[in-house]
């Protein structure tokens, strides 16, 4: 994951053998593939715009990799039927790509890439060109499919939510550099730098350090401690409540509260409050609450 133009797709294309790296090697399963041409790498690649073969039917699209490998006709037929069933477009087998919706084309491209039984599956912004609802459905479906076929999959996206939802491991890329790599929760909680912090979710500053707004707590009693601040604005955003604060030293920050916490606070703009970082135990509690 990373912002547009950061080099995600280029890296993916290097892995697939569609681009040649200036330096470094591409290794899969301990095997150096750097000098191996794309067609011999056995890597499944799904292009951002699916790259359907427009003159071929869905069936022939999916069969392409097997036909090129000169597999027996019966075997190809069986395998293609199986794959079309798997991606749930068996009823569209004899159509042309122009007769499919975006989501259906996406699944056809996936079946086509899976037909060659790739060692690794590469997906370049697979949901980028789809509308929000279809994207959500396909994301869930892809996760399920992945559990079924268990092919190592590298997915490129600029969408934080999508990355957090589908990934076991997350790599953040920015301006051609790998910023951080790790489990999504780990990166979210312990970002290596300001960029990762800000890119992965909401961030605000307190005492000159970056912090997640939901990791801040507010009290309206002086005794508990924290930094003095005035409530500037309270915005209700459905599930969450955003409280903008002006600190004593003149700087601004904001806190993300649950509706319950906001009701408990019972403040209005202009009130004095005290803000501090949540202690880890408290945050753990909050997290469990959200998950349950």
């Amino acid at each position, binding site marked *: 994951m990373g912002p547009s133009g950061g080099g995600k797709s280029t890296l993916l294309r290097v892995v697939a053998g*569609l681009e040649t790296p200036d330096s470094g090697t591409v290794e899969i399963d301990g095997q150096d593939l750097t000098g191996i*041409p794309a*067609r011999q790498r056995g*890597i*499944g690649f799904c292009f951002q715009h699916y790259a359907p073969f427009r003159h071929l039917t869905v069936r022939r699209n999916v069969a392409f*990799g097997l036909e*090129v490998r000169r597999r027996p006709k019966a075997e190809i037929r069986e395998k293609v039927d199986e794959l079309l069933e798997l991606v749930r477009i068996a009823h569209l087998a004899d159509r*042309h790509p122009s*007769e499919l919706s975006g989501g259906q084309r996406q699944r056809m491209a996936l079946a*086509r890439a899976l037909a060659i039984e790739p060692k690794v599956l590469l997906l370049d912004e697979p949901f980028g060109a789809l509308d929000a609802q279809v994207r959500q459905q396909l994301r869930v479906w892809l996760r399920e499919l992945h559990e079924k076929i268990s092919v190592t999959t590298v997915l490129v996206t600029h969408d934080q939510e999508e990355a957090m939802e589908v990934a076991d491991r997350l790599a953040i890329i920015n301006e051609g550099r790998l910023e951080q790599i790790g489990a999504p929760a780990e990166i979210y909680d312990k970002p290596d730098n300001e960029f990762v912090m800000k890119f992965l979710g909401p961030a605000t500053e307190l005492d000159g350090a970056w912090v997640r707004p939901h990791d801040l707590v507010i009290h309206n009693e002086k005794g508990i401690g924290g930094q003095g601040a005035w409530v500037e604005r309270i915005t209700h955003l459905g599930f969450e409540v955003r409280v903008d604060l002006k600190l004593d030293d003149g700087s601004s920050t904001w806190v993300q509260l649950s509706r319950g916490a906001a009701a408990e606070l019972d403040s209005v703009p202009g009130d004095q409050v005290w803000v501090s970082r949540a202690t880890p135990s408290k945050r753990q509690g909050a997290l469990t609450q959200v998950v349950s």
Partner: protein
Amino acid sequence: MKSRWRLPLRIVALGYLALLVVIPVGSVFYRAFQHGFIAAWDAVTTPDAVHALWLTLLVVLIAVPLNTVFGVGVSLILARHRFRGAWLLDAFVDLPLAISPVVVGLALVLVYGKTGWFGNWLAAHGIEIIFSFPGIVMASATVALPYVVREVLPVLQEIGTDQEQAATTLGASSFTAFRRITLPSIRRSLAYGVTLTTARVLGEFGAVVVVSGAIAGRTQTLTLFIQDSIDNLNPVGAYAGAVILAIIALVVLTVLGADREGRKAKWRSRSDQSPSDSEMPLPSTTSVLMSPMDH
């Protein structure tokens, strides 16, 4: 478009077509058969006429495949590679269209003629180009150079490299990717480019008259035969020759164009029923609805 304009517009369009194409071509047909079918038949079955016909067909059979291979190759180079001087290559492809065919013919004579640059070397090796068959093929190929490129290049640029790269990751060699993915994608535009090339080669006069010497029964193509017939006060021969030329052109247009029309109709019906978020199929290339007689 308001409906009251429809009728006048149609009349203008059809009238224009009638004045430029239908009436002149029709009168050629009329004049050819004015003295009966037998007279026309006799005029085009003289040994010189038959030879001219075969020579023309032979030139087409060699020059058109040459230009097709060259045209697709140049299109691939221009569409798929970035290099210095690409614009120059692009411009040179169009050059034969920009300069007069007579000048093209003269240029070939200057280079390959007896007193030309390669004249001595060619003569020493017994190769005859000017006033001979190879010269006619070269002149024809040169004037018809741009057509395939101009039809195929925009389509190649439009379809991009995604499909070819997808084929590569699926295990296809670059030749397989070309044959099974690229070629079917450019098929319609290629067919049209070949049609235009054929029409141009069939009808070429200016360049051929300069390089061939127009020797009857030896280096006289059909267009030269028509000119020769007019000069020798043999109008029936000229008109009948013109009719044959027109018939060949029509056959070429029908055979190569049939596929195009068929596929067009197929695409049209497809796009009607395609789901809302799908892309439109390939737009047809510069759909110049020209008849080969225009050249």
